[in-house]
């Protein structure tokens, strides 16, 4: 159910202007120009890359259910329409907030560290320091070792401190209790193993994919609380520090952005990097999406920005082709820039 709601929300945001495959690429976090730019244009930051291992088969299965229960109509050209039924569901559904764009799977690193540290502290408290580490990744193991040493775990004071931090930070995290339960059931300790997804699903009467989504959402919200209040949660903050990506630009776009921020023009960057002009434009659009201080006015006048958004409202579309017909004096690049910025520069 939860996953279906997310799919409907994504389809809704896409405004019937993308194919039925677009949500699939979005959820898997595909690093293509199209998917990344769509995140900005259709305001889909929440959902980017939350299910990197989603298979096409599974995705198609879920789509079939939406078609069967008459929420979605798939057209011959691979595009879709949302039904009134879907609109009803969208109105009623509970919002589950995610932060896929900024965590990009890093939430799993946080959880791996946490679970190994809890496992160790649990055994240490029981006076039983030989156990098989639940996390096999060498980097996670090294990190946990460093953390435990730096925080003087041998004294026995770390357990109550960490417990306090977990209690009060999760208390402040605004998600359903079931999400917090699931998360803590995934931890293991002395004499108490964590539960598998199958076991949790059986006990909570939930399917696999819904469990995963709730789990991810809980982690995102929890980490946001920890990172925003680091002075209150110094231990958890160490585990989460640096995992929320401040500059989500990918490799090549990152280089172009650096040159741009150093004052080079798009044409110059294209020459320096020996890349096509259109590629650099893609990078600048990505930068505009991600950099709050990006000055849109250096490319498009304030008047034109307003014109674009008026057109978006009037024609209820974000399709570049349509917008280009309405404001023909703007290039596609300029239009993409405006859409990438979203409404933040419109006023």
């Amino acid at each position, binding site marked *: 159910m939860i996953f279906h709601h997310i799919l409907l929300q994504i389809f809704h945001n896409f405004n019937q202007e993308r194919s039925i495959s677009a949500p699939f690429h979005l959820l898997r976090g595909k690093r293509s120009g199209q998917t990344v730019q769509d995140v900005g244009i259709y305001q889909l930051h929440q959902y980017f890359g939350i299910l990197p291992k989603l298979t096409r088969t599974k995705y198609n299965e879920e789509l079939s259910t939406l078609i069967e229960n008459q929420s979605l109509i798939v057209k011959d050209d691979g595009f879709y329409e949302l039904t009134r039924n879907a609109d009803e569901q969208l109105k009623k559904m509970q919002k589950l907030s995610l932060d896929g764009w900024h965590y990009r799977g890093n939430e799993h690193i946080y959880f791996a560290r946490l679970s190994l540290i809890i496992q160790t502290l649990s055994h240490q408290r029981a006076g039983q320091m*030989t156990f098989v580490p639940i996390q096999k990744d*060498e980097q996670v193991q090294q990190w946990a070792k460093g953390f435990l040493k730096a925080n003087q775990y041998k004294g026995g004071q770390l357990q109550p401190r960490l*417990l306090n931090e977990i209690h009060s930070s999760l208390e402040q995290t605004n998600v359903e209790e079931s999400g917090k339960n699931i998360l*803590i059931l995934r*931890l293991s300790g002395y004499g108490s193993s964590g539960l598998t997804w*199958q076991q949790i699903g059986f006990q909570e009467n939930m399917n696999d994919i819904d469990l995963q989504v709730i789990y991810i959402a809980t982690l995102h919200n929890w980490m946001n609380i920890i990172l925003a209040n680091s002075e209150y949660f110094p231990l958890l903050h160490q585990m989460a520090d640096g995992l929320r990506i401040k500059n989500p630009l990918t490799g090549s776009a990152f280089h172009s952005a650096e040159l741009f921020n150093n004052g080079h023009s798009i044409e110059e960057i294209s020459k320096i990097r020996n890349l096509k002009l259109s590629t650099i434009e893609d990078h600048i659009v990505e930068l505009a999406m991600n950099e709050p201080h990006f000055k849109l006015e250096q490319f498009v006048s304030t008047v034109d920005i307003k014109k674009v958004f008026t057109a978006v409202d009037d024609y209820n579309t974000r399709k570049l082709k349509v917008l280009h017909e309405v404001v023909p004096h703007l290039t596609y690049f300029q239009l993409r820039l405006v859409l990438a910025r979203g409404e933040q520069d419109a006023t």
Partner: protein
Amino acid sequence: MQLESILNKYFGYSNFRPGQKEVIENVLQGQDVIALLPTGMGKSLCYQLPGYIFDKPVLIISPLLSLMQDQVDQMKQFKEKRVIALNSFLNPAQKRTTIHYLHNYRFIFISPEMLLQEHVQQKLNSMELSLIVVDEAHCISQWGFDFRPDYLRIGQVIGKVNRPPILALSATATTKVLRDIESYLNMDGPYKFIHSVDRPNIHLGKMLFQGREDKIDWIMDHVSKSAGPGIIYTQSRSKTESLSGRLLQAGISCAAYHGGMDPLDRQFIQQQFIDGSLEWIVATNAFGMGVHKQNVRQVIHESLPSNMANYMQEIGRAGRDGKDSLAILLYAEGDEEFAKFVGIDDYPVDAHVDSYLSYRSRNEQPSSMIQNGEISETAFRVLDYWMNQLQPAEVRQQLTSMKYEKMRAVEEVMELIDTNKCMREKLVHYFGQTLDNTPNDCCQCCGMDYGKIIHRRENDATYPHLLNWKDRIEILLLGNS
């Protein structure tokens, strides 16, 4: 020092298990040794103990990354810090450092792929080893159920002269495979310790059915009436999930286990199975390696194993504590066809030979076949090996005969189903051994009563009382008090 006192000092045991002492004594005298010891009989001690007597590193060649990881984990648990696994899990920087300091370790685990790399060989040549262990040595034989072409190259790499003794270890090898081990590793008149493959405390049952669904019904009934802990082996991932789902619904504490699972899930299942909170596991053959549980009372095969060696290894997970246990092989008409299909499914065919040749003729890496989704990695390894050894026509012949061999292996398992003579004798004969005496309630054919071997199921599964997150995290960190 006496071997017994070393055993006690480092491992905390006061006595050797059968075979261990003989193997260790011969290893210490510099003799090549082949040791065939059943699963759970303490194979790894045969090289771990000498490791504490020698002052030079022991090199252990191991075919499976998961197995290697498990061995390293176990040794670290026994406070051995000078142990390392050199495999593809390491990133380039870690690999460089590891190789640089390789001579400082007491136990070096290595995958065959890694052993073949030139800079690894250079390093190994520059240092002195006390012993080379070839674990799961049956992988060297194409007649073994788990042929690894890279294993064939071990013999070339370690050479013939000026080398330390070789200890080849296996749990399941036929006479034919034993001969292959000796010749491919260029072993020098090795001392052989062949333990009987028979496990008298495992009683061998079988049940024949008309249809597939009948097997499931029988399992549901049997498992709800008899006591575990137990393992149910089945062929496909989806089946582990559906069957365990049904058992859960019936109030039985169980879990599915297969190779495609979340790694954390696998850890949880092992932990729960060992601490007793999980009664049954429904698994593919991916389950077993590295599960050190002594009191498994039942192993049920829902589907036909693809060969005798697999069957032996899987039922061998029952009764490690020496107490009576039950292995039941289920069969429904047509199961052998399915088992054959699974057996040869992941195997190169003629079309792969053609494709391999066309990559070669285009001057492309044939290994691109893997990336292009034409072939699985394991199948490619076999194909690649033979393509480098033989002419294409011979490779085709080779593949056909191996495919035939795999199908025959299923027929051999079928003999257990078809026979009305002693199943135990069949099993032991397969490994080229003879059975001296049969236990009471030996097998279905000799006559047996399941009720005498396993207990009735007492209580209904009690689900762990689900705590809310606040209580659970408190118990994890502060304990119950």
